[in-house]
């Protein structure tokens, strides 16, 4: 479980996160949603240590991540997998080398064992036989899948996904969302997805927190998000004419 306690973050005098507290449970897809600039990506970066919090704590199964130095964080980081918005595959490496990279760095397995793991991960994301391709030879959806395969290569306990649908068509987006949810349930991972895609919210939002202007304004799931009493969340969800019409018809 990941627990965020009173996380506050400012850049100079600009307050980005204002005392956010939340719990993210294993085996479910947790969504952090909000408009662009609301602070959701900053929250995620604070949780994984890419930004240092100004105050507050982030606990991974009771271990306070924010108090640890670089070296002490390594054991926790080995338990984290992450899918970046731009996927962040190493473009000088093939698909196989990308997925094998964390294994090469941290595992003492033989090459054959590592290769077996790579093939397993690729199969899990429905991408057999692309081992020797370079990231530049893959489509957007395939890159996302490879990103997921690399993220799960070390059998992480925690999976972060930063806007996994960005740049994808609606159908591929849904497939990626479903893949993330399946993997989460299968491996009992604590998955956190940062998104502002309403399709994702409705598809996989088992636990959702809504951030508005750096504050946590609403918490719930995809069943009750359409009936929230938060005006800020309403403005966010029903921003499009389609959603407004949907609400009117209801």
């Amino acid at each position, binding site marked *: 479980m990941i627990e965020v306690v009173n996380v506050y973050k400012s850049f100079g005098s600009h307050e980005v996160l204002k005392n956010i507290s939340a719990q993210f449970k294993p085996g479910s897809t947790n969504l952090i949603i909000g408009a662009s600039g609301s602070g959701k990506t900053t929250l995620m970066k604070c949780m*994984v240590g890419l930004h240092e919090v100004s105050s507050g704590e982030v606990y991974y199964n009771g271990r306070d991540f924010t108090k640890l130095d670089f070296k002490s964080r390594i054991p926790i*980081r080995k338990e984290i997998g992450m899918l*970046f918005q731009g996927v*962040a595959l190493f*473009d000088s490496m093939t698909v196989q080398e990308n997925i094998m990279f964390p294994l*090469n*760095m*941290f595992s003492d397995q033989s090459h054959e064992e590592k290769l077996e793991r790579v093939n397993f991960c690729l199969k899990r994301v429905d991408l057999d036989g692309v081992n020797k391709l370079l990231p530049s030879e893959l489509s957007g959806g395939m890159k996302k899948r490879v990103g997921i395969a690399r993220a799960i290569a070390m059998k992480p306990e925690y999976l972060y996904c930063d806007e996994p649908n960005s740049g994808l068509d609606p159908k591929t987006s849904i497939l990626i969302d479903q893949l993330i949810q399946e993997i989460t349930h299968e491996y009992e991972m604590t998955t956190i997805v940062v998104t502002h895609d309403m399709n994702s919210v409705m598809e996989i939002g088992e636990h959702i927190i809504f951030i508005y202007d750096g504050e946590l304004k609403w918490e719930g799931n995809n069943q009750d998000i359409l009936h929230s009493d938060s005006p800020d969340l309403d403005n966010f969800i029903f921003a499009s004419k389609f959603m407004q019409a949907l609400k009117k018809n209801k």
Partner: protein
Amino acid sequence: MILEHFGRYCLLIHSLFLKPEKFSVYWKEILREMVSIGIGSLGIVVIISLFFGMVTAVQTAAQLIDSIFISKSVIGTITRDSSILELSPTIGCLVLAGRVGSNIASQIGTMRVTEQIDALEIMGINSSGYLILPKIIACITMIPMLIILSMALSIFGGLIAGGLAGIVSRQEYIAGITGGFQTRYLVIGLIKSFIYGFIISSIAAYQGFYTKGGALDVGKSSTRAVVFSSVAILLFDYIVAQLFL
């Protein structure tokens, strides 16, 4: 502002010396960088070095043309000493700052803006150590080797130019380059190339590592890497000359 950059630069260099996650992976990277920097720069080094010597020989001859008291073998001596002390290490490294430095800065800068460095950090890898240390080690080993080659080719270039233009005979030129040779000039030239190798790689890596923004900013980092390392090379050229000559 300058102090802030210098402080960050020192912290970055300090962070390189954390224990490597896996030595074998680092070793492979070092070898890969050595090939990229060493073999990759051979062509440009060969071309510029030959011309260093050819131009020096012709210009020295032009200044001695009316003198009947100075032996033409001096052309060989001046070409040799200029090549070893200044042309190959300093001008050669200024050229390498353009070729190697801009490459390092743009490579690391691109990794920064495409979140590849963040990906390394998330995996628990010391990104600065993994990305920068192999490049610095490759530069401080390969650049002195390239400069030794450059010195030899520059002296050989002088011989070619002397023969082609008929300004100095082969025997006179060889007498010039073999007479009065001072080993300390070679040592000073190698010290310079070692220092410049560190300057080129570390400044370029610093510029790339702290790139912010997008593709345009990668280009700016690359330009800054070449400009700052060129200035630093000339500054240290003066310091080394003051200290050792």
